[in-house]
């Protein structure tokens, strides 16, 4: 089982690297998908640069959204912030249900084309999993553990940073993982408003009816998502072990 997982992982890494760095290797597979002698390999930009731009966009959105969701989750689980839970939950839910395309349409007139509207859409879209998992993780810290911490003279900040956040970390990371994967896919729509990213490849394919481009862009994004999901899952298991729970 472990060997199979390792082989699958290595295959995905090698496949991704080849698709990004040596796309011409796949000419033979992609050529039959093109018509009228259209190019089989994306030729309008450097795939590596697009991939890095895509990752940077998702990383920035996840960092900003993650910190926002984490802080909100911490605030609404404090006694003083409990009354803001319904309001925060509504905001975060709207962020998730409001289509990112619609966010782009509304954001472009306000902030112009490019990275800014895409970041806004991704941040809003990725809040929910981190927010909800932060709340769940903090609420699942055993009452006896918190009671002991208070009984030994830890103040609110110490309890939060010494006890609550470390114990909630696996759940928070699970939310982060979900958010990253959602946004890796969603970030492709940023290319409709001129944000650099792998969406360019897919959109170029759509505009010229070039299935080879669509497949190329789609597979790279999918492999990125699978590998990032896998890597974050590994980080999560380490965190869970360090939180004193036997890893599943």
């Amino acid at each position, binding site marked *: 089982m472990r060997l199979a997982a390792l082989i699958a992982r290595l295959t995905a890494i090698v496949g991704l690297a080849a698709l990004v760095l040596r796309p011409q290797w796949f000419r033979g597979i992609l050529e039959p998908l093109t018509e009228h002698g259209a190019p089989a390999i994306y030729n309008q930009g450097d795939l590596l640069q697009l991939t890095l731009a895509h990752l940077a966009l998702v990383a920035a959105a996840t960092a900003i959204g993650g910190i926002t969701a984490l802080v909100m989750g911490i605030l609404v689980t404090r006694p003083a912030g409990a009354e803001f839970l319904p309001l925060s939950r509504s905001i975060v839910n709207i962020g998730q249900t409001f289509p990112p395309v619609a966010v782009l349409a509304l954001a472009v007139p306000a902030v112009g084309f490019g990275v800014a509207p895409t970041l806004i859409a991704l941040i809003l879209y990725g809040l929910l999993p981190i927010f909800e998992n932060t709340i769940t993780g903090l609420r699942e810290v*055993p009452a*006896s*553990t918190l*009671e*002991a*911490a*208070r*009984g*030994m*003279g*830890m*103040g609110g900040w*110490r309890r939060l940073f*010494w*006890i609550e956040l*470390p*114990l909630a970390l696996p759940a928070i990371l699970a939310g982060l993982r979900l958010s990253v994967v959602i946004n890796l896919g969603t970030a492709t729509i940023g290319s409709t408003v001129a944000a650099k990213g792998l969406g360019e490849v897919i959109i170029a394919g759509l505009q010229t009816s070039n299935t080879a481009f669509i497949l190329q862009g789609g597979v790279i994004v999918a492999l990125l998502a699978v590998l990032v999901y896998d890597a974050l899952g590994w980080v999560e298991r380490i965190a869970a072990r*360090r*939180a*004193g*729970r*036997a890893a599943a």
Partner: protein
Amino acid sequence: MIEIEGVTRRFGSITAVDDVSLTVDRGSITVLVGTSGSGKSTLLRMINRLIEPTSGRIRIDGRDTATVPGETLRRGIGYAIQGHGLFPHWTVARNIATVPLLQGWDAARIDRRVADLLALFDLDPAVFAGKFPHQLSGGQQQRVGVARALAAEPAVLLMDEPFGALDPIIRAKAQGDLATIQRRLSVTIVLVTHDMEEAIHLGDRIAVMDGGRLQQYATPAEILAHPAPGFVERLVGGSDRPFRLLALARAGDAAEPGSAPGDPVPADASLRDALAELLWRGTDAVAVAGPVPRRVTLPAILAHAGRR
């Protein structure tokens, strides 16, 4: 010394603790006994101000606890709870070091203290310091919990059902260990339990709580021999009361000069054990170990078993 004076705590319309006054002597074990909802845990948690009294005053060694910031107060008082409450993401050593860290001890002093405490609780530091709580047995977790509570050398140790999660055999051992350690460190212990047997076994004095009120505050022998009418009487009035009384007295205290056949019982054996030995051997006197020949007789034992 802990002086509790007219302490009351209300939660909304419910009075959890109702005008309780009692004094706990320095270096003694006082056990708060009662059913759930009797207010015993609330009373305990008011001593370190996890719960603030609605009215009344608590002084520790003469100082009003209300004049000390809550967190400072709690760092100076040991606290051990049922199910140990160990921090699952910290090693045993780090768990024990919690309060010394909060008090800003230097690393070398903390390391020394952790090693000393592990040794005191029969846990080899080389083996246990680096383990995580989930790698320990229930009894070991409980010992680490108490070691952690004692880490910063508190004068007072509060324990809320500390043995509640243990099975009976380990519990008896843990109770014995606690009594030994308490004598060695002469720390003042206030312990909450619903188990009268445990209270009689451990307590220098027992405070029986019911419905938020203090029903009786006396030594175990006094409570068994002269229970306050009503709740306390029902609590201790079972058929094993004479045996509980015998369990409190030592063979050496009831011994008289003289000889008896067979192996002697230790002088610090309880009269209950001496009686068991006597019944088992089918004799009416058993020798007591000591420098001079002594024995304890059936009439002497019976004299301790009833209301005096």
